[in-house]
């Protein structure tokens, strides 16, 4: 008998931790008038350690978070800021809650990395809680996979109320008669596809597209300003100007593709 089981019945749902009003006002007072170092305790809730590496690189002399008094401590009992990394696996839930309870009030909880914010790429895995905010109340989210040290410093500045957050929720609604522009309308579609495919074959998806775009801009420039130059001379000039031999080779190959198309040859 295969009776479908509702997975929610198998999990003991526990009420999320709530903060009292008194603690909320204490936290506000702390943020308004923090005149000392902010100690950070790092709670690893089952991450891949990429976030930890970035945290440690943000306290190195290059980024030097300690010049703002942000110091990583070894015990949650010393901490003002709790930094939760990882997607909160089942087995790390209790240790994470114990660390949260051990930190003295008022405490600031920062959710670090894509996994900490929403569960990231592991959001629908059977063994994770999918984000820090499912177990403790979170004050600041720092997304990134992993966040760069500069993003970490920005996140701490937002957590301590020194900087304003830049991101805002936005909804774009399609306007009446809105149309997407056709790329390179002067170049035949078949040729455009061949150029993009060849460039992407040689340089990879992203760089290939960039090179193909540049090349097609060159082609269109030729079409709009017919000067004394012939097309092949113009191509040779573009190849000659290119410093990077790999790019020069790709542009040379694209020029060949154009010549083939002009001669009517199929690849």
């Amino acid at each position: 008998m295969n009776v479908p089981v509702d997975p929610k019945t198998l999990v003991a749902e526990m009420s999320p931790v709530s903060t009292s009003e008194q603690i909320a006002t204490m936290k506000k007072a702390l943020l308004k008038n923090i005149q000392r170092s902010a100690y950070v305790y790092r709670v690893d809730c089952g991450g891949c350690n990429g976030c930890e590496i970035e945290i440690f690189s943000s306290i190195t002399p290059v980024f030097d978070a300690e010049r703002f008094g942000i110091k990583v401590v070894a015990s949650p009992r010393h901490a003002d800021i709790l930094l939760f990394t990882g997607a909160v696996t089942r087995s790390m839930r209790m240790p994470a809650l114990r660390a949260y309870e051990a930190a003295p009030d008022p405490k600031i909880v920062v959710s670090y990395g894509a996994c900490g914010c929403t569960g990231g790429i592991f959001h629908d895995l059977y063994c994770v809680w999918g984000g820090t905010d499912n177990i403790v109340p979170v004050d600041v989210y720092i997304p990134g996979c992993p966040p760069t040290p500069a993003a970490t410093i920005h996140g701490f500045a937002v957590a301590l109320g020194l900087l304003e957050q830049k991101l805002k929720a936005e909804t774009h609604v399609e306007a009446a008669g809105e149309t997407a522009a056709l790329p390179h309308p002067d170049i035949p579609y078949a040729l455009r596809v061949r150029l993009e495919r060849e460039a992407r074959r040689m340089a990879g998806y992203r760089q290939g597209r960039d090179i193909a775009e540049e090349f097609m801009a060159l082609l269109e420039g030729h079409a709009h300003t017919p000067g004394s130059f012939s097309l092949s001379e113009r191509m040779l000039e573009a190849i000659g100007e290119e410093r990077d031999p790999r790019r020069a080779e790709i542009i040379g190959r694209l020029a060949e593709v154009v010549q083939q198309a002009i001669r009517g040859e199929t690849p």
Partner: protein
Amino acid sequence: MLKLLKEIFRTGEATVKYPFAPMPVCKDFRGKPEHKAEDCIACAACTVACPANAIQMETDTAAGSRTWSINYGRCVFCGRCEESCPTGAIRLSDDFELAVGSKADLTRKAVFTLADCACCGKPFAPAKEVDYVARLLSQSARSAEEADRLRLTAATCPACKRAQDVHHIAGMGIARQMEAGLSKTGKPAKELETTP
């Protein structure tokens, strides 16, 4: 001592000025995916490519709309959306300052309208996508007639196209198969007559 001081002056300051001065990022840095909704045709290529399901689409045929949404909190900055985008509407920018206080600020949405099928009148695809495909096809059409025909094909839903194809093929096949059936058994096959 003097040697040490000399060394210190030679090295200079290693710490970056970051929060007080903008942080320069390297070329091809993969930061926040910037979505230009004006160029987007809501084709869902990025939705399929996104490994973390940060980009999602919901189609509401009753309201005739398709909602595109990205959750920056779930994004792993791999750049697959940028690679798969046919119009270049989504591109990874240099922006890395994504920290927010509330989770709702991490999402961005774009609402697109659905086009009705030219045949059955039911909504089937985003109007911008249909328009884009029609223009792309008519760009490579040889005559104005062919362009009109291609535009009509692009504006027809897959179900209607299939029905038309079946009708067309069945119409072609009956005459041919009736000949074959008559020659073998002397009477036409029954089921062929019921095909639409």
